[in-house]
C-alpha cells in the first residue's frame, strides 16, 4: 500500500483521528494523529491485515521551540519550494512504523498538548519494542509516556538532571565533583 491508501484506510476506520495528512511532495509523508486516538490507531495499524505494521522502528521526541526554517533563495522564474508544515506544539512524538509482510512504511506524528509537561499514552501494550524506545525518549526529551510499566532513565545516569535533547537544555558544568568546563 502506498501512503495515500494507508491514510485513506485510517481515516475510514478512525474518523476524526487524523489531524493532518502531509503527502507528496514531502520527502517523508506523514500522518498527524490526535493524542487521544493514538493507541486506537496504533492498534489498528498493528492488527489490520492490510496495514500490518508489525514493527515499531523508532520513537523520536521533537522539540520545536527554536524552529525558524530558512528557505533557500529561489532563482527568478523558479517555483518556490513548499515550506514544511509549521509545528503545532512545542513537543511532538514521531513514530516510524514498518510492515514486514506488506513491505511499506509509515510515519505517525503526535503533538503533545502540554508544553510544560509533555505526555503521550504508551504503546508498550501493542509493541513491546516501545518499552526501551519510550524510555529513551523520556530520558533524552522528557516526554512522559503514561501507562509505561517502567519509565526511568535508560541512557543517562539515574541521577542526571534535565533532558539533554530539549532545546533549552543547559549543559551541566559539574558532575559529581568533576568539572565539565
Amino acid at each position, binding site marked *: 500500500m502506498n501512503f495515500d491508501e494507508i491514510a485513506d484506510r485510517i481515516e475510514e476506520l478512525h474518523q476524526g483521528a487524523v489531524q493532518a495528512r502531509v503527502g507528496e511532495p*514531502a*520527502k*517523508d509523508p506523514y500522518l498527524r494523529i490526535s493524542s487521544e486516538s493514538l493507541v486506537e490507531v496504533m492498534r489498528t495499524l498493528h492488527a489490520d491485515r492490510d496495514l500490518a505494521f*508489525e*514493527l*515499531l*522502528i*523508532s520513537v*523520536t521526541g*521533537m*522539540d520545536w521551540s527554536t*524552529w*525558524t*526554517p*530558512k*528557505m*533557500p533563495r529561489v532563482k527568478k522564474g523558479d517555483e518556490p*519550494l513548499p*515550506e*514544511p508544515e509549521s509545528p503545532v506544539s512545542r513537543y511532538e512524538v*514521531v513514530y*516510524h512504523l*514498518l510492515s*514486514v509482510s506488506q*513491505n511499506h*512504511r509509515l*510515519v505517525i506524528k503526535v503533538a503533545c498538548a502540554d508544553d510544560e509537561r509533555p505526555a503521550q499514552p504508551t504503546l508498550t501494550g501493542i*509493541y*513491546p*519494542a516501545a*518499552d*526501551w*524506545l519510550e524510555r*529513551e525518549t523520556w530520558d*533524552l526529551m522528557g516526554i512522559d509516556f503514561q501507562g509505561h510499566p517502567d519509565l526511568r*532513565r*535508560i*541512557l*543517562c*545516569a539515574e541521577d542526571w538532571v534535565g533532558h*539533554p*535533547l530539549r532545546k533549552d*537544555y543547559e549543559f551541566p558544568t559539574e558532575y559529581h565533583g568533576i568539572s565539565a568546563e
Partner: protein
Amino acid sequence: MSQLQEMEKRLADGQREYVLDVKTQDMEINMGPQHPATHGVLRVVLTADGEVLTSATPYVGYIHRCAEKIGESVDYKMFLPYTDRYDYLAAMNNNVGYCLAVEKAGGIEVPPRATWLRMIICELNRIGSHLIAFGTYGLDLGAFTPFLYGFREREWVMSLFEKLCGARLTYSYAYPGGVINDAPEGWLDELLRFCDVFDKKYQEYDALLTRNKIFIERTRNVGIVTKDQALRYGWTGPSLRASGVRFDVRESQPYLFYDQISFDVPIGRGEMGTTGDCWDRYYVRMLEMLQCTRMLRQCVERIQADTTPGEFLTKLKNYRITPGEAYVGIDNPRGELGHYVVADGKDVAYRIKIRGPSFCNLSILPEILPGAMLADAVAIIGSMDIVLGEVDR
C-alpha cells in the same frame, strides 16, 4: 512473603516447570559492565537459581555520548566522524546511512560511481563485522581459535579500507554527495582476489565452528526467539531473518543500487533445532558473508563497466539542507540503522535521530533470558551480535 509462599506463587503462575524439593535462595548476579562476554559495557543483573536464570534486567548507557545532541551542534559534514563511532564495527554502513539521509533531505545527487563504491564498502564492512560476530561468538562459547581465524581475513578487509581511505576502524569515507576518494589503482582487483580467498577460507570457519558438535549442542534450541517475538520487540536485520522472517531492506525496499544486482536473503530454517535459536542467528550471519562476496563481485563488474573513474563526489558550495525531514533506514550488519534528519535550512541539522538496531534487539533480554542457564545467557547475548557503542550512542 516467605520464601516458600513466594515459590508457591511462582509455581502457580507457571513460572517454573519443576518443583524444588530443597529450599534454595536465588542469587543475584551482576553481569557487567565489565564482563568478558557482554561485548562492551552492557550490564545485566541476573537472578539465578543455581545455574538457571530466573530474571534478567539489562542496564545500558555506560558509554552514552548523546550523539543526537552532537548532531544538533555541529554541521552536517562535521557530524560524519561521529557516525563512525556508534557502531564502530560497521562504520562504513553508518557513514552511508547518514549520508543517504542527508542526501534525501537535501535532494543531493550522487554520481553512480560513488553509489557503487558505497555498496562495495557496505558489503565489505558487513563481512568485517560478521567476522567479528563469528569470532567473538566462538570466544563466548569457549573456542578461541575461530576468533583468530576470523581476524586473519578481517585484517585484509581492514587493509583494503586503509588503502581506500587511510583509516582502519573509523573511516568517514562516504560523504554527503558521494565518497571522499576514488578507489586507488588495482584496489578493485585486490578486492576480487579477496573475494576468492574468502570463499575458500569460509570453509575453514564452517569446519571449525559451524559443524562442531559441541558448538551445535551449545546453540541449538537455546534462546529461541519466535517470529512473533522478534517482530514485537522490533528486531531487524540478520537476527530477525534468523527467526524466519524474510525481510531485508536491501531486497524489499532497495536503496543504492541493490535492485540492480542479484543476491539471496538467508533466513533461519531451524536446521539444527528450532527456527530462531542461537545457531540460526549465527548461521544466517555466516551465509550472509557468502552473499556479500557474491554481491561484491557483481559490484566490481558493474563499476568497471558502467562508470568513469574520477566521478565520485558531487561538490557542493554549502551543505544547507532545505527545510524538511527525511528518514532513511538501511540494512546494517546488525539490523535496520535509521537516520531521521530534520533540517531547517541551516548548516546544522535541527534534529538528528539515530535508530540503532542493537538497541532494539537488546530490549528482548528480560523476556528470553529467564529459564536459560547462565552459560546460555552468554550464548544468547553473543548470538544477538550487539555493539554497545550503538546501543548507547
